[in-house]
């Protein structure tokens, strides 16, 4: 078993996948705490579908670095969704449902109309659920993912206090003069970035799991915001590594394996929380 693992680790793309995957898991868990508490989980879900549509466009255009197309489209949509959510006249959830299924249909249509490979349904499946075995990233994608996720972690640490304040009570923050709009914008942008990054790892349909599960696991057993944040990061990274190992050893699809481990972890935490009271 260890031999098999060792053999895999000698391939650079496996090491890349491991590093990037861990970083993405770390970022998404940090963000997850905020999104769950702000009742923004659905934004993550909607955005991941938009990212799928954008990916279809990038694939059809045969762009060498797909992120250049996907990232701006997703960030822009995130900002639009946030703005529409602030406007009481437009129903936020309906708008998001509309955008997300629209993007999904549009993306699938594009990929069928302009197939870039012989196996369209295989392509679609791996974009939705992540690659069937290990993810294959180009070295430029590894660099972009690495740098972006480190930026997200650094931003989170430095803005921790303000993010907490804005998440706990937006009205209070606004009343005492904190520029809430900027932080919401930042959160929306970071969400979009993480979703685009995580799409490589688990596929666009499973991203929400990566964002929501670790946060909910931590929340069901811990009582302080700091502890929840830290524990959620630890859970997420551990589950990602564990999922990777299983996926390598058993040859299961990496994305759904990680999510399955996350789900089991959530059930354990939920039970522990119930028992502790």
């Amino acid at each position, binding site marked *: 078993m260890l031999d098999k693992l060792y053999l895999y680790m000698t391939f650079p793309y496996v090491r890349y996948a491991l590093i990037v995957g861990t970083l993405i898991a770390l970022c998404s868990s940090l963000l997850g705490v905020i999104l769950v508490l702000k009742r923004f989980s659905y934004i993550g879900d909607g955005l991941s579908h938009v990212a799928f549509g954008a990916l279809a466009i990038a694939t059809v255009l045969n762009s060498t670095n797909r992120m250049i197309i996907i990232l701006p489209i997703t960030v822009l949509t995130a900002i639009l969704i946030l703005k529409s959510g602030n406007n009481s006249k437009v129903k936020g959830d309906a708008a998001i449902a509309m955008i997300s299924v629209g993007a999904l249909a549009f993306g699938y249509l594009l990929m069928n109309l302009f197939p870039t490979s012989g196996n369209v349904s295989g392509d679609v499946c791996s974009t939705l659920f992540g690659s069937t075995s290990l993810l294959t990233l180009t070295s430029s994608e590894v660099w972009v993912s690495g740098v972006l996720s480190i930026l997200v972690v650094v931003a989170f640490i430095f803005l921790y206090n303000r993010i*907490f304040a804005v998440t*706990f*009570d937006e009205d*209070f923050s606004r*009343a*005492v003069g904190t520029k809430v709009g900027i932080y919401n914008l930042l959160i929306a942008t970071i969400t979009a970035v993480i979703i685009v990054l995580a799409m490589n790892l688990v596929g666009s349909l499973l991203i929400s799991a990566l964002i929501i599960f670790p946060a909910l696991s931590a*929340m069901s057993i811990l009582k*302080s915001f700091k502890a929840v944040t830290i524990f959620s990061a630890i859970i997420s990274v551990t589950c990602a590594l564990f999922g990777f190992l299983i996926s390598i050893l058993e040859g299961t699809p990496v994305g759904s394996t990680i999510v399955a481990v996350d789900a089991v972890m959530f059930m354990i935490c939920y039970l522990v929380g119930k028992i502790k009271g």
Partner: protein
Amino acid sequence: MAILTAKELTVGYDKQPVLKNINFQINSGDYFCIVGENGSGKTTLMKTILGLLPPIEGSIEVGQGLMKNQIGYLPQQSDVQRDFPATVYEIVLSGCQNSLKGFFYSRAQKKLALENIEKMGISHLKNKCYRQLSGGQQQRVLLARALCATTKVLLLDEPVAGLDPNVTKEMYDLIGQLNSQGLTVIMISHDIENVKKYATVIFDVNKLDVIKTSSESDTSKEVGAC
């Protein structure tokens, strides 16, 4: 000395006026209470005073160089907060956000948070989780947070909503104490009977007029004490 003056003020959402032609003046040291039925527009008025909503017409003038970071606010509780995983200390400390320079809280700010926790008599709950506290304890936490944000003006939106009579009285006493220590209090309430005992000025949004002024307050305070 007026610290806040509303002139010909109209407030509402999305250009839809809820309350029109409001005029009042709040002086430094006042215990100013805005009363009215539920749904009469009190919270809309409070949000306009706080600058969370733009006035539709008229103006709110702020005197004596009152800055945003000298205002403390006790909002009505939202669903988000009811099950929020955070300790009392974390929440109270977040009241210092308007004096946060750089990225992290200073030692002085942490000390201020601890002092205010003690002032509200909740030191023993410092590391407890907010969502496990009783309604009255939660209000004390939010009051301590508001005190971290202000030394001058405290705005309270229905601070006793949902509290039982004993805890309500404690809360009013606490607010009264803060007022007597020099803090200007602006409070929203639908509980006119109780408010009469404590407030120095009462503004009724249904009549759009002041129904009680400081001059009467002394006598009614004595009545309240009986």
